[in-house]
């Protein structure tokens, strides 16, 4: 019997048109979502011809969001990865770090933060090791806004990146390790879309992205910033924030930024994936850089002085281009003056 994804495909090709990887890496090197998710499993002799294709997917889920049959394409692509096993160098490194530290990257940062309270701020591996300013910024801002926020002494990877490379047993183990630490919080807040989605799946309490926390819990009437210098910012839409956590988050981001005197949000000429997700930055760093460059060039063309991204993965990958300043949205907000 064929699966829903195999017999539900109407072969319209809309997913192939939407795929940001397919725009820059063409057939036969990369074969596009339809080929990986539908045709290869349907005609299994073509599995071998897929070569690296499943590993080049950034799991942006743009394919899925435009699919007229609403097929779970991303999930099917990740399944193909599992089929091939964890082959990449990046994947092996991640697993070895998980075994050693319980994190995908060795812990580096020391944050200035209370260690108990009611709102648990979950730093996440990338936030901790690569964009500590986003974590510290978020905690400082929430404290300034009167929130009882804390970072626990110990915490482990949420499991999201491991799910993307098909390492199911590690995902389960990490969830077990985190459960006692996270179970005592009244609410969990993160600055990482991947952590938000992954932790919420297995949690009884609200796990909110910091934008949701600011907008829904702290509420916009208490958020009053101003920028001393006028600045044009390009707002990047992180795939996992928009399509996993939900598109309302970017409405919040636009509304918060739009209310700040001196800050002008400018539109980039097309929205797209920065290439920072799905483990692609470690398996295909050149390709991830090429994708990031498209975003940065688009922001420069639009006249941006800076790119803001509410996702540490996007921040890290977009920064690699180097032509334009890239900041985590929360870190940017923290640096503005709060009008009290």
């Amino acid at each position: 019997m064929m699966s829903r994804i195999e017999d539900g495909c109407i072969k319209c090709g809309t997913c192939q048109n939407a795929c940001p990887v397919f725009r820059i890496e063409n057939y036969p090197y990369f074969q596009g979502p339809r080929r990986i998710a539908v045709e290869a499993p349907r005609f299994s002799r073509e599995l071998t011809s897929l070569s690296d294709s499943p590993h080049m997917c950034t799991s942006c889920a743009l394919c899925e969001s435009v699919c007229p049959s609403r097929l779970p394409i991303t999930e099917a692509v990740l399944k193909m990865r599992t089929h091939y096993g964890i082959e990449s160098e990046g994947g092996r490194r991640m697993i070895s770090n998980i075994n050693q530290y319980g994190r995908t990257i060795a812990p580096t940062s020391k944050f200035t933060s209370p260690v108990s309270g009611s709102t648990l701020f979950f730093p996440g591996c990338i936030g901790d090791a690569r964009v500590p300013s986003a974590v510290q910024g978020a905690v400082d801002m929430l404290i300034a806004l009167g929130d009882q926020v804390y970072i626990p002494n110990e915490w482990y990877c949420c499991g999201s990146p491991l799910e993307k490379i098909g390492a199911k047993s590690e995902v389960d183990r990490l969830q077990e390790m985190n459960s006692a630490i996270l179970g005592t919080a009244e609410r969990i807040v993160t600055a990482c879309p991947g952590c938000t989605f992954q932790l919420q799946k297995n949690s009884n309490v609200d796990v909110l992205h910091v934008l949701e926390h600011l907008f829904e819990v702290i509420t916009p009437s208490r958020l009053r910033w101003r920028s001393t210098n006028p600045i044009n910012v390009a707002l990047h839409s992180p795939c996992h924030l928009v399509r996993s956590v939900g598109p309302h988050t970017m409405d919040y981001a636009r509304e918060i930024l739009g209310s700040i005197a001196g800050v002008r949000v400018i539109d980039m000429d097309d929205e797209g994936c920065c290439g920072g997700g799905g483990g692609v930055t470690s398996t295909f760093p050149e390709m991830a850089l090429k994708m990031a460059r498209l975003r940065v060039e688009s922001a420069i063309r639009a006249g941006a002085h800076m790119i803001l991204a509410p996702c540490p993965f996007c921040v890290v990958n977009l920064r690699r281009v180097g032509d334009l300043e890239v900041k985590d949205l929360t870190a940017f907000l923290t640096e503005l003056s709060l009008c009290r």
Partner: protein
Amino acid sequence: MSPPVVDVDIFIAGGGAAGLTLASRMASNGYRVAVASSSIAATAISTGRVLFNHDDPAVAEWASLFLTRFRSRESNYDLLERPTVAMTNIGTPLKQSLTNSSFDWTLEDRDVAVVGVIGNNDLDSDLACLELRRSLGICARPLWISPFPYPTAANNHFVGELADILKDNISENTIVLPPISSDPTYALLTKLQNLSGKRVVEAATPLSLPGLRFQLLLEDVAEEVGVRLLKDRRLISIKIHGKEANEAVLSSGMRTIIVKFSALVLATGNLASGGLAVNGRGVIDPLNIFRVSSTQASGIHSSTLRNALSSGLDTCKGRAITKQGVVIRNVIPIGSLLKGVSYPLGYGLGEVMLEAWKSAPIVEDAL
């Protein structure tokens, strides 16, 4: 924590041609309107070419809101006095009354070369020329060019190279190309036309950029007149009390949103099994609480398609009826969701937009 609430006068589920047409009309009349859409609208994968019934007075009304705003976006859309014939990407004729006339091929063009780009599936020049001769008796010359990076909005410096190729190697005056860019302003085609000195036209290609451009224009106009677009948000339930609906629940990623409204418009596209907009698996929640019936759709040659597209929601004075026979006074289905108003790949865009436009009094009455 309770889900966020959106409070509007009119909530429209479905952001394709029907939903956006009615939304724009209502918003420009001063109502608070929100449109939720999930997945891709059938409009966006259509040919983007519109055929109107020119005797219908609603055409002029529609044009007064949309056409001027289209033009201000340099989209080059014109409303023709009577329909002309254009060519699809497989060489079949296509009637249209709203067209970007600078870039559309019409029957009057007889000196035509059809240029395919190797590896680009949007235009098969050999096939198109064979079909052109068979269906319209027109001899066009099929040509292929190499797939050097085809111009896009992001790398438009290739336009110059492409213009040189067209100018130096092709004697025909009219050149048909695959869709060239997702740029809704058609700026690249204008540039290509100016640089090459040729009349450069696009094939009317479904599942490609022309439909997407038309969709983006409709969305742009809707936002300009004050419609709140809730994109990628999906209708998951409708709360009905007695003969009235007053609340809908939408999913937004992993969260939900409540929408409170005075009138609910359903514009979710056709219900045909395997149909596009609903989810590809036939009628699902929350639409399956409404009565479905079937009528013979007209204007479709293939009987298989005609049968497949003939079913849709039943209505009483424009209102939806539950399976138990209760008329819900403020739920109004429009567009291809109605029985008999479905066409394959956008042939029905014109009818769908006009009918949606004309349903405004029903919606006002339900408020």
